[in-house]
């Protein structure tokens, strides 16, 4: 037998659920304790499983950290995530990963950052936000435009509000929160599409880096907006969603033309996929 083979490629490490907090009608926040630190980069994902139910790719929502904690936000969208929503703290989950390229923080250092985030896109983007906040002295500015459909669907409301208030006293940070419609609910942000405030944000085509994460339709309009502001394609990063089954470049589900999203992505520099059919829509 070839002893160099790792028999654990598909074997998850077991993790204990520490905390489950409802966030909206459909999303819950999960905090897990792993057996060993994940050592992930922002924008990476894990394959999360409940033994006997199945496995699915889930974004990591916490920034890089040295301890054994892993944070995720899970929408009740299918049979596995439905089963996950029924779990209690103390129960065990399987975790493989981290997988994917993620954001290369080193190459972003020193650049003004603009993050355009729609809906669940805030979940992976929060890992980047936390990573940048942890070394804010190395970034000239951080602008976050975060939109969702209604106030009831807003994720991490208190965190985003706190960041918004911090921005009022800290010149480097600016947060713009939007909803498509208020749905007659109290709302302290703006009403409009997430792409609308791009026009008022300071963008330096030579320096600013923009990261996008949201539903497919958001990319189309955000990219048009950025093009009109002369932001070059190699200053834009897009975080793409695919339904990975393996995370290790084998199952074929996340293939975009020649690229395997779970290996080359899910975060891509836009110029590398701009010409690829099926990448964005």
């Amino acid at each position, binding site marked *: 037998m070839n002893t160099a083979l790792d028999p654990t490629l598909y*074997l998850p490490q077991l993790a204990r659920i520490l905390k489950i907090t409802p966030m909206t009608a459909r999303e819950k926040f999960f905090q897990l304790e792993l057996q060993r630190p994940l050592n992930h980069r922002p924008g990476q994902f894990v394959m999360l499983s409940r033994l006997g139910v199945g496995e699915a790719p889930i974004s990591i929502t916490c920034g890089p950290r040295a301890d054994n904690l892993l944070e995720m936000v899970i929408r009740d969208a299918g049979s596995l995530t439905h089963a996950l929503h029924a779990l209690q703290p103390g129960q065990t989950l399987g975790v493989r990963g981290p997988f994917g390229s993620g954001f290369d923080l080193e190459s972003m250092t020193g650049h003004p950052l603009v993050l355009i985030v729609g809906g669940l896109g805030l979940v992976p983007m929060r890992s980047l936000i936390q990573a940048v906040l942890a070394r804010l002295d190395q970034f000239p500015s951080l602008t976050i435009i975060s939109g969702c459909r209604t106030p009831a669907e807003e994720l991490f409301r208190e965190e985003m509000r706190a960041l918004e208030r911090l921005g009022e006293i800290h010149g480097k940070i600016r947060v713009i929160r939007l909803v498509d419609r208020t749905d007659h609910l109290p709302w302290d942000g703006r009403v409009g599409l997430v792409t609308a405030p791009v026009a008022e944000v300071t963008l330096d085509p030579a320096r600013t880096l923009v990261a996008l994460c949201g539903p497919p339709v958001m990319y189309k309009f955000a990219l048009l907006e950025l093009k009109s502001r002369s932001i070059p394609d190699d200053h834009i990063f897009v975080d793409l969603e695919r*339904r990975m089954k393996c995370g290790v470049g084998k199952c074929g589900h996340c293939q975009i033309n020649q690229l395997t999203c779970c290996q080359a992505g899910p975060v891509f520099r836009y110029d590398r996929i701009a010409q690829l059919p099926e990448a964005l829509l």
Partner: protein
Amino acid sequence: MRAFLVPKQDVITWIQRLGVERTVYFPQRVGRESYRFLPVKPDSTIEFHGYRPTLAPPGKKLSPSTDTLFFFRNRDSEHPELQPVLDGAERVLAGVRPCDLKGIELMDRVNREGHPDPHHLTRRAHTTLIGCDCLAPCDERCFCDAVGSLAWRANADLFIIPLAEELLLEVRSEAGEALLHGCAFPPCPDPDALKARIEASRARPFGRQWPTDATRVPELLADGGTARIWEKHVAACFSCGSCNLVCPTCYCFDLHDTLELPDFQSGQRIRTADGCMLPTFAQVAGGHDFRPTPAARQKHRVKRKFEYLNDRFDTTSFCTGCGRCGRQCTAGIDIFAIVCDLIDHAEAS
């Protein structure tokens, strides 16, 4: 390289005897005209001539369509137990034609790349390959020569060239040599001269050929054809995925879990073959489907076989030309005809 010239019956007896000592798969007829790689028994019919391609390629013995990755127990306890499954049983795949030898090599490359797949590679490390040449095209659907498969020998441990009453048996590796332990086959006096004569007598053209120089096919396909071409060929497609299931280089899969009675505390995580022609293959959690139409899925499949994976896996074609997809297609869709249309379109424009 040692070579033997052996009476056909002696080789048949040798393979039947090997099948007693270990698991040996050989293409055997099932029913009227279906062939499958089945374990050889002492009374199995071993035929070298009149080969018809098997329903499934022999590579499925290395990555089965249903494959257990690990067992688990006590899933609700604080400490569930996980037990990975690796199949290290010795096996021989015999009567493997050049197209399928190439298919196995491409699957080895896929499974060695990046994160090596322990399940495929463990089986592979315990598998010996006995190849068998094709002196005539197996049927009118074959196009192995057009995609560079016909001359494939590289991964065969032993290679058989079936002449009329004798077989030329070449030893190509130590594992192949080991299978001949105890055999007193007569050496072939001048195998190179014999092979040159066989080569000269091989049918030409061998099977279907592209309407252009084969080396230009990936470049000609890169322009993507027209919607009209994709829609024309996919019009009859049922999106059943049969083409994916029988392809020697389709390796996409899904993972899911099973649970066992009575208490649903133990079970297994299994990998099952999946197919890019199936309707929800590229759908994501929010419901968005990146390839919602059969035409988009067929374009992905065809380009995967002829363009997308070539550089990544160092091959001029990821299709082996075995013709299985066309043979098994319930709607008669033929990948060779699609590629010919794409070539014609690219050359005309």
